[in-house]
Structures are given as structure tokens and as C-alpha cells.
């Protein structure tokens, strides 16, 4: 694959904050026009990586290219290709929606004729045309997010970076934001990089990259990740303490969950059959979860990895205490 077709190329990025190693020779590639999700716990290095790609942070070593431009050697060119929506809103509350968008257009060198055409189109796409002359301070959080997404597309951005786009929004707004993103992507065509910790959002992506401790743990499509790392989980609610004891003696690798359920990780069909056949009366309630990204995430970045000194990233069954 030639590098023009790669929207982002990251090689061996290292970044230290004091004694903390935020990025540990992190490498990845993002293809043009794909939707790419970055998933990882807090402190995994996602924000550091994003800031380096946005050229507002310098790495200690390694290279990064956005839209084919090296972020260290040609930051201005990289920025021209980027549209960034940070987690914290960056609109001016004392200016109107139109004024905020015009500001962006001017600062990104978008010619007046293009601004006059694109701004109304984008406002229409995010259903905020009626709010064009209102002060941004009077908009709700969800509306501000939509404005910021529209704003990022006023110039010829090829790579859009969204840092936790739906944090702080209610479920309805969250779904709406994704609908707008889908429409915009279908109309305009761009590479979308999203960091999120909402697992259900990650399903939207073409590829999901799981990071922790500054390294890539897995990088593949959601289906492939589920197939490789996902676990089937059977959860049982026992009748009483005796039942619980009976179940855990039959399945010694089972773990107790905080709500009193017992979780058994393994091949669902066999576990279910054994449970029902031999322990039927002990069971109050049983449920079965197919391999999900939730379990992929847990198995790759679960508590065990954090507890183990200098923990290496190995897929661990969530069953081990």
C-alpha cells in the first residue's frame, strides 16, 4: 500500500512524562477513508497520541505522518489536512454560530466563495440552520458538538479526529451524533479517527485499535477481534450460598461478580449443558453472552494486567482472579 493511501502512519512513537512512559514505541497505520476507533482505559496513551497527531505535542522519538505530511517537519501542512474535535468544547460562547464558523473558515484560509457555500450546507446537514445567528453560549452540549463537527469540515480536511465525541451527552444525542457522522462521511468522504470508551460505539468502526500502557494490544475489525479474543460468558444466579458452592466446585475457574452472579468463561454450549443437567435446581437465573467487544476489551486490558508488575499484554481469561 503506497503511503498516499495511508491517512495516518505512526512509527515507534515514544513519549515520557517524568517517569511515566505514555507511549511505548507505538506504531500503527490508518487507511484513507476508514473509520478507525482507538479504545483503551484512561492513561493508556490515547490522548497523548492524538495530541502528537494534531501537532500540539512533540514526541521524544519516532515519526508520525498525517495525510502524508510529517507532523514534526511540516506541521502546518499536516494541520491543513486535519479537522479536530477535542473532548472539551472549543467554541467561543460569546460569538454566534455563524461567527464561529466564519472564524474557522478565515483561519484555515478557506476562500470566501467556498465558505458561503459550505457553511450553510454543513449547518443543514447537522440540522442547525435555524440557529445560525444565535450565540453559541445558548446552545446545549449536544448542539455544540454538532457545530464543532460541522466546523471541522469547512476546510478540505481529509482526516477528522474526534476525541471522546459523545462524553457528557445523553443516549439520544449520542445516537444522533453518530447518525450525523455517518451521513457526513457518506457525503464528503474522509478518514475518521475516534477515541472513545463507549464500547457500543466502537462497533461502528472499520477497525478497532486497543491500546494500553502506550502500546497497541490489538488492531483489527470488530468481527475479527471478537473471533480472536472474544469469550463466551455464562452468568448464573444461584439460589443460595449452598448452590453457589455447588456451582463453583463444579467449575473451579468461575469468578464471582459484584452483583452476586457467578461468571463462567468458556465454550458456552458445553457449560450450559452441564449446568442445566447437573445443577438445574441450584440455578435461579442463567444468561449467556456471545463474544462481545466488551469481553475482548476485558480480556486484553483486564485487572490482571494492571496488577502484575511490569504486566505484559497477554489475552487473559477474565475468569482468573
Amino acid at each position, binding site marked *: 500500500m503506497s503511503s498516499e493511501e495511508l491517512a495516518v502512519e505512526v512509527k515507534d512513537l515514544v513519549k515520557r512524562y517524568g517517569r511515566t512512559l505514555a507511549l511505548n514505541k507505538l506504531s500503527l497505520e490508518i487507511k484513507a477513508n476508514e473509520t478507525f476507533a482507538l479504545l483503551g482505559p484512561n492513561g493508556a496513551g490515547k490522548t497523548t497520541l492524538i495530541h502528537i497527531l*494534531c*501537532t*500540539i505535542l512533540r514526541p521524544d522519538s519516532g515519526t508520525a505522518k498525517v495525510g502524508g505530511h510529517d507532523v514534526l517537519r511540516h506541521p*502546518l*501542512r499536516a*494541520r*491543513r489536512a*486535519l479537522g*479536530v474535535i*477535542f473532548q*472539551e*468544547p*472549543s*467554541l*467561543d*460562547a*460569546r*460569538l454566534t454560530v455563524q*461567527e464561529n464558523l*466564519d*472564524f*474557522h473558515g*478565515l*483561519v*484555515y*484560509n478557506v*476562500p470566501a466563495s467556498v465558505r458561503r457555500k459550505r457553511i450553510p450546507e454543513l449547518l443543514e446537514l447537522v440540522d442547525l440552520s435555524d440557529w445560525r445567528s444565535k450565540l453559541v453560549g445558548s446552545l446545549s452540549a449536544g448542539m455544540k458538538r454538532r457545530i464543532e463537527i460541522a466546523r471541522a469540515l469547512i476546510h478540505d480536511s481529509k482526516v477528522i479526529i474526534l476525541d471522546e465525541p459523545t462524553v457528557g451527552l445523553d443516549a439520544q444525542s449520542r445516537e444522533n451524533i453518530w447518525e450525523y457522522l455517518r451521513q457526513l462521511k457518506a457525503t464528503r468522504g474522509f478518514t475518521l479517527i475516534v477515541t472513545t470508551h463507549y464500547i457500543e460505539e466502537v462497533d461502528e468502526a472499520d477497525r478497532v485499535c486497543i491500546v494500553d500502557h502506550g502500546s497497541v494490544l490489538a488492531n483489527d475489525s470488530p468481527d475479527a477481534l471478537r473471533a480472536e479474543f472474544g469469550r463466551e460468558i455464562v452468568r448464573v444466579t444461584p439460589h443460595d450460598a449452598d448452590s453457589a458452592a455447588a456451582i463453583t466446585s463444579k467449575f473451579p475457574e468461575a469468578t464471582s461478580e459484584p452483583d452476586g452472579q457467578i461468571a463462567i468463561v468458556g465454550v458456552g454450549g458445553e457449560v450450559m449443558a452441564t449446568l442445566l443437567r447437573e445443577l438445574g435446581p441450584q440455578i435461579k437465573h442463567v444468561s449467556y453472552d456471545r463474544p462481545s467487544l466488551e469481553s475482548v476489551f476485558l480480556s486484553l486490558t483486564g485487572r490482571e494486567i494492571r496488577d502484575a508488575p511490569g504486566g505484559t499484554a497477554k489475552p487473559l481469561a477474565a475468569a482468573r482472579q
Partner: protein
Amino acid sequence: MGAIGGVYAIWLREIKRALRDRGQLVGGISRPLLWVLILGIGLNPYFRAEIYGEVRFVVPYTYLQFIFPAVIVLNIMYTAVQSAVSVIADREFGFLREVLVSPMPRSLVLIGKVLGGATVAMVHGSLVLVLAEFTDVNLNLSDLFIGLLLMFLLAFGLTCLGIVIANRIRSFEGFGVFSNAVILPLYFTSSSVFPLDPALTGAQTRVVYPEWLVNIVQANPITYAVDSLRGVFIGFNQFEASLGPIIMGAMAVVFFAIALWDFRRA
């Protein structure tokens, strides 16, 4: 080049925000009213000295005329410092990121910001000019033009100074404390509300006033800014006339350089 559009956008934003900032506008109008009309008129009769039964003018102008240019400087100082507060606000409320991530070079971002802040400060300074006819200050067009240029130069330097300070202070409260501890002392020791008698030599002045006060006034750059505006608007210079523009020019250059160095480092 298209970069001018960006500088214009940043400049325009400062103007729009200032127009919508009611608190600042109220301050910019009430200050000249208080200082010129009330304090100025109130102290006017006391500004002449009677020595050996003879009425002698310490300064050959009325107090109203004397204090008029100083209040212009006061308005510029207050506004320039307040535009620096917006630097802290931008950092706190995230707007700065939008600009930092854009393809605008840092130096142009700073220039837009400073030009915007200086324009607003200069306009606030001009609000004082409205009171010119109450104070018997005659303004002809060429005086006005030169005066506005000098005001802009001063506004530019003070806005840069405000930004330099804002870059080093993390919170709004800290900045408020600082500006009050700095603006008013600088103002009062700039020969703004009381003059150093030009008829006396340095040594003689030190007889009338305590030595420390004379030293402070002579070392204070604002003294020369006020003096040069006095020279333009009422034709009275206590100090060498060229000192004012030179010092204001130096302030503008030095503070801008520091602000730029700060900004590039971030």
C-alpha cells in the same frame, strides 16, 4: 496571502467580544466621567499656587487640561490588561486549541490578538476624547491623528505586557490581584494626577517631594507616555518630547518579543 484572513479573523473576534462586554464598556465610560468631570472639576480651583501673595501657576494649564491626557492613558491601561485576561479565558475554556491546531503560524496568531486588543484599548482611550470640550482642550485634526497614533503605540505595548503576564498566571483571581497591584500604582506615579514642577531642577524637585517619589516617577515608563500625550493634546511637556515615543516604541518591541517567545514555546 491567505494568512491575512486569519489575522483579520482573530482581530475581529477581539472587537466583537469587546463590543459585547457590557462590564468593560461601562468601566470605559464611567472612568473618564469620574476622573475628568468629577475629580478634575473638583480639584481645578486648587491647582494654582499662591506664593508671596502672587498667583502662580505650577503648570500653565487648568487641572482639567492637565489630567485629561492622563485619563486617556488610564483607560488604555485598564483595557489592555483586560484583553490579557481573555488569554487566560481562551486557555481555560478551550478556544485556544482551535487556533493552535489551525494552519496559522504562531506569530500571526499573536499579531492578530495584540492588534485586536490594542484597537479595543485605543478606542477606550478615545472615549475620553469625547470630553475634550468640557475641559477646554482644543483638538485639531493633525493633533488628533498624532495622538491616536501614540495611543495605539502605547496600547500595543501594554497589551503585549498584559499577555506576557497572563501567560505566567494560571488563574483569573491571581490576575485580578496582580492588575490591581500594578495598574493603579503605575498610574499614580506617572505624573498623571500631580505634576513634578518643570520650573524646578531635579535637585529642587527633590526638596518639594520626597526623593523616593521623584525617583519612581522618573523611572516609570508610563510617566513619559502620559507626558507625550500631554504634549500633543495640550502642548505641555515636562520632559524631553522625544522620550515618550521612544519609550513607548521600546515597550512595544520588547514586550511583543517576549510574548512571541512565550507563545512559540508553548
